[in-house]
């Protein structure tokens, strides 16, 4: 047998923290990302989970897919609950009621639970500088309740509350830039990740968990059910989101941008969109408009990244 250059079990943590038997849709990209995130976080983790797909699929009473302590309360308060857990543990360790231990307090929520209803709690937790990690699993709509639009739904996508119709193209607003909002709070670590680049995702979550202070990782989650794509294309579509520049992978450490991977030439967004039914109604004019915006935003990101490198070189 040849020597293998890729042997996955050596490259990622082995422990299946998030176990099969969960009720996620067939081909769900988000649950794959959660499975990998759980591996990255390890045993010394406490998870506060918002209401959403990942909470529902993993917790039909009296069972759970989680093998680490987990709490779900309501939809919009995940960052606040995580704040309370972090503060409680800190004080109890200080008073000697719990052994000193590095516990990764982690908040998990979807795009709706982060950029819409959960934004206040998130902002407060970031401002107070709690030592926790916030993972936003972004499937670009309120998928759990039936594919309704959120502020993370991309321009032109059809959802049940922003349907493409005779007088509308679907979502008429542009995707809210949540990582930028996280960066604006001045937190030490912000990153974007995608399970189609699993080693990058695991490394970023490990880094986020190890960061002292708040950390935010925005994770692209392909949803075959909501995006109307084939269940086996989940990983491919995630890759295309990155290679077309629609979802660039980058990190921001203490305000310094760094692209995780840069492409000299981006693939056309039609490669990504044609695989998904949610964009199927768009005219070529709209697609061109979106294409220009994607390239422009990508350039802006690249400039920020170059500026950061320059600033580093100068210092």
């Amino acid at each position: 047998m040849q020597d293998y250059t890729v042997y996955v079990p050596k490259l990622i943590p082995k422990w299946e923290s998030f176990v099969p038997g969960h009720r996620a849709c067939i081909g769900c990209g988000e649950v794959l990302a959660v499975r990998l995130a759980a591996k990255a976080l390890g045993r010394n983790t406490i998870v506060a989970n918002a209401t959403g797909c990942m909470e529902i699929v993993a917790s039909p009473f009296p069972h759970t897919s989680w093998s680490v302590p987990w709490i779900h309360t309501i939809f919009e308060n995940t960052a606040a609950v995580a704040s309370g857990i972090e503060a409680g543990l800190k004080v109890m360790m200080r008073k000697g009621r719990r052994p000193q231990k590095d516990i990764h307090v982690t908040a998990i929520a979807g795009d709706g639970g982060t950029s819409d209803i959960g934004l206040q709690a998130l902002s407060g937790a970031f401002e107070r500088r709690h030592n926790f990690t916030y993972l936003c699993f972004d499937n670009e709509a309120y998928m759990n309740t039936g594919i309704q639009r959120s502020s993370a739904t991309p321009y032109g996508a059809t959802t049940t509350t922003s349907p493409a119709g005779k007088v509308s193209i679907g979502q008429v607003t542009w995707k809210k830039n949540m990582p930028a909002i996280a960066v604006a709070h001045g937190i030490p670590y912000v990153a974007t990740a995608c399970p189609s680049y699993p080693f990058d995702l695991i490394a970023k979550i490990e880094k986020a968990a190890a960061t002292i202070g708040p950390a935010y990782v925005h994770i692209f989650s392909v949803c075959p059910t909501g995006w109307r794509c084939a269940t086996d294309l989940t990983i491919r579509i995630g890759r295309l989101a990155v290679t077309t520049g629609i979802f660039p992978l980058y990190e921001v450490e203490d305000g310094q941008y760094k692209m995780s991977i840069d492409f000299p030439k981006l693939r056309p967004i039609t490669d990504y969109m044609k695989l998904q039914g949610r964009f199927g109604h768009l005219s070529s004019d709209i697609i061109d408009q979106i294409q220009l915006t994607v390239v422009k935003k990508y350039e802006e990101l690249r400039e920020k990244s170059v500026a950061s490198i320059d600033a580093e070189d100068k210092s």
Partner: protein
Amino acid sequence: MAKTESEMTWEDIEIGAIATSPGSARQYQTGYWRSQRPILDKSKCIKCGLCYLFCPEGCIKESKEGYFEADLFHCKGCGICYRECWPIAIKMVEEEE
């Protein structure tokens, strides 16, 4: 044998309706959802484990001989393993019933 949720009385409920068995979701057979299943061609398999990496269920396991195969108790038949397999050692076939 623990009571199922349709057998539990109100007195059986743990305090705060807390679930105290981590990973107990394993007992649910999501394999029933399948309409197609993965078949592995061992002659082509290079034992890289990418299918195990990308499986949303986490049901692909390494056998003693080093092959990675889906546990059909949980496999939902999404086909991601088939798509991501480099040497195309996996193919999807219709579930017979």
